[in-house]
């Protein structure tokens, strides 16, 4: 069975030409994109199994000798397609700043402390029901130089493959109630307000563990619907 990827679903994405986000000015294509037919090159994609993971990859608080500083959190959710079907066995890679808003990256110059017990990278595979779970530290906000007094809302980067090269997506998960949303041109590059909401995780008491960590729920919806019969392309 092949999958159908309706082009209309792309309207949820931001435009690369989003001038309030300064880095787009010299990096967004200036010519219109050309519509690509969906051949096997697009409807297939890399598949990763458990060999891609090591023990502890999904617990970012256990990757060093000691406990990281900051607020321990659990982030879990499901990966689904546009019809709400689970996407099983798909790889999720995440990365983030530490509790002080500092990345372990040679070019991060924010004068906040590095945490010797926190690197901020993790991997997980979704299970049969498309579920995943990470344990990590709530990342801090940090300044950047996009405009005067620019600060990024706290976020965790998510990278997913899904079933094909067409479902490949890199995105960011945000936290509910962040006062920085309305000032952040990366978050605001998504013009559809409903689509922006889909990047905000929800506090979830069911994910929260007593005496240990708050839980956040973040479901991810990838492109792709199951094929409808070729003879009845408009039939559900």
């Amino acid at each position, binding site marked *: 069975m092949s999958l159908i990827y309706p*082009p209309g679903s*792309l309207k*949820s*994405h*931001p435009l*690369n030409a989003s001038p309030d*986000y300064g*880095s*787009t*000015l*010299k*990096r*967004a*294509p*200036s*010519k219109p*994109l*050309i*519509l*690509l*037919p969906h*051949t*096997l*090159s*697009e409807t*297939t994609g*890399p598949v990763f199994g458990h060999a891609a993971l090591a023990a502890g990859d999904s617990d970012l608080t256990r990757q060093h000798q000691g406990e990281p500083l900051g607020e321990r959190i659990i982030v879990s*959710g*499901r990966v689904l397609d*546009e*019809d*709400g079907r689970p996407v099983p066995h798909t790889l999720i*890679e*995440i*990365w983030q700043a530490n509790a002080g808003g500092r*990345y*372990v*990256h*040679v*070019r*991060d110059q924010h004068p906040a402390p590095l945490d010797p017990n926190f*690197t901020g*990278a*993790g991997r997980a595979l979704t299970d049969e029901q498309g579920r995943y779970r990470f344990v990590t530290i709530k990342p801090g906000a940090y300044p950047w130089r996009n405009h005067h007094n620019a600060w990024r809302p706290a976020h965790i*980067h998510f*990278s997913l493959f899904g079933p094909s*090269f067409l479902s490949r*997506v890199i*995105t*960011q998960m945000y936290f509910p109630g962040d006062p920085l949303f309305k000032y952040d041109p*990366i978050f605001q*590059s998504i013009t*559809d307000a409903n689509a922006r*909401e*889909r*990047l905000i995780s*929800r506090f979830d008491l069911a994910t929260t563990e007593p005496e240990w960590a708050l839980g956040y729920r973040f*479901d*991810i*919806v990838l492109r792709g619907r199951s094929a409808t019969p070729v003879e009845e392309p408009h039939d559900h």
Partner: protein
Amino acid sequence: MTTEQQAPQASGADLGITPSQTIGPFFAYALTPRAYGGPELATEQIAAEGVAGERIRIEGVVYDGDGAPVGDAMIEIWQADAQGRFHAAGNAGFTGFGRAETTAEGAFHFETVRPGAVQGPDGRLQAPHLSVSVFARGILVRLATRIYLSDEPGNAGDPVLMLVPADRRATLIAQRVGDTVFRFDIRLQGEGETVFFEA
């Protein structure tokens, strides 16, 4: 949704997709962690030594609209094997998938085998090609493009290249610059801008 409460996120057929966001400048220790000693999921080696097919190396530089090299981009490749197969069982050492971080000078390369032809629209064969995604700070949605090879006679009739205005097709064709080396620069914007696809 007009209700003030956020709607459940997994509620059925009206689900919209999760929007893309930029990879940002700090992805390396998760996605391309070699410099940090981390375990690499994928590298610039798509085909190990000994995999069937003609070995090729593809190398290039990513440039921005000012012609400045983009030193914080990530390039991903997806391709068929030499027989034109994706996910070929038993083709050990061939992943079909490559991932590379650009150097400070904007350079990237991949080590692979020349892909075979893959079926395209209407059952016609496509010329051999590699599918490419470009991610970088300032790119909000992955940029999709293709690499064709300059010495492939099938390029002239390729159904996807035919969709591209003739004066821009060259931006999709890697030029042979050595016995096994092809050059493919990526220009994000402006003069000589690479053709990007809406996929």
